[in-house]
């Protein structure tokens, strides 16, 4: 078994109103110096040894990500 992390983030050119709301809230809470926040998603998959990298890329691209608006990164994490 291995742990695989898929990070999905909105593309840079896509407006992220959730990230903007967080920036606004940080300012109201008194945290200064935070120029920008972008909010994405992190998926943690427990996969067995039969799942190869090509399959993981397909899982990320076909289901976990809408590639019109999001980018993804797949990484295997050491146990």
């Amino acid at each position, binding site marked *: 078994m291995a742990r695989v992390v898929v990070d999905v983030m909105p593309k840079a*050119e896509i407006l992220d109103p959730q990230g903007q709301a967080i920036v606004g809230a940080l300012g109201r809470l008194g945290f200064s110096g935070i120029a920008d926040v972008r909010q994405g998603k992190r998926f943690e998959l427990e996969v067995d040894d039969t799942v190869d990298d090509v399959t993981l890329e397909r899982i990320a691209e076909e289901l*976990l990500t*809408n590639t019109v608006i999001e980018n993804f990164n797949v990484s295997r994490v050491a146990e």
Partner: protein
Amino acid sequence: MTARIGVITFPGTLDDVDAVRAVRIAGAEPVELWHGDADLKSVDAVIVPGGFSYGDYLRAGAIARFAPMMGSVIDAAAKGMPVLGICNGFQVLCEAGLLPGALTRNEGLHFICRDEWLKVQSNTTTWTTRFELGAEILIPLKSGEGRYVAPPGKLEELEGEGQIVFTYAGGNPNGSALDIAGISSRDGRIVGLMPHPEHATEPLTGPSDDGLGLFYSVIDSVLAAA
């Protein structure tokens, strides 16, 4: 003959009943379709209605797109069957690749529930032939993720090909690109829009009966082809 128009129900769909009712009011035979079946029951057209299919888990429409019924819809659409996606249905059609672009969280993050004036920008699609070009129609909008976006170059292409079908006429409510409320496939047989024409079919229950135009239009198309 009577046109048979299918309405799909997914877990979490909530506007299927109104869509069925709109089809009936327009004079066609509504056919209820279940997401887990693959049988289209010989319908002439399909409506993917609004709601929160699969709880909007992962992304709105992302799970519904893989339902067995959607596989059949994608195959039938490739052969020219008219398809209408309303609100969550529009999101499903974009996730399925039947329409370009994507629907994202509203600018300002508010869920917007109010009647909106829409301008008809194309009356050559299968679902809009009954409208005058440039007509303004009053249709309820109720969505939190209705901000249409498309990859670079795609918006210009949609404009150039006449695939922008409806725009918001009374100010942009959600930050949607080019004020887009609805678009079509290149051949005009697939249309998706965020506002709800099925909620505007009679003055008693809606702000107008302007929504009927979409259903009349597709019925015209089906009967003309019979």
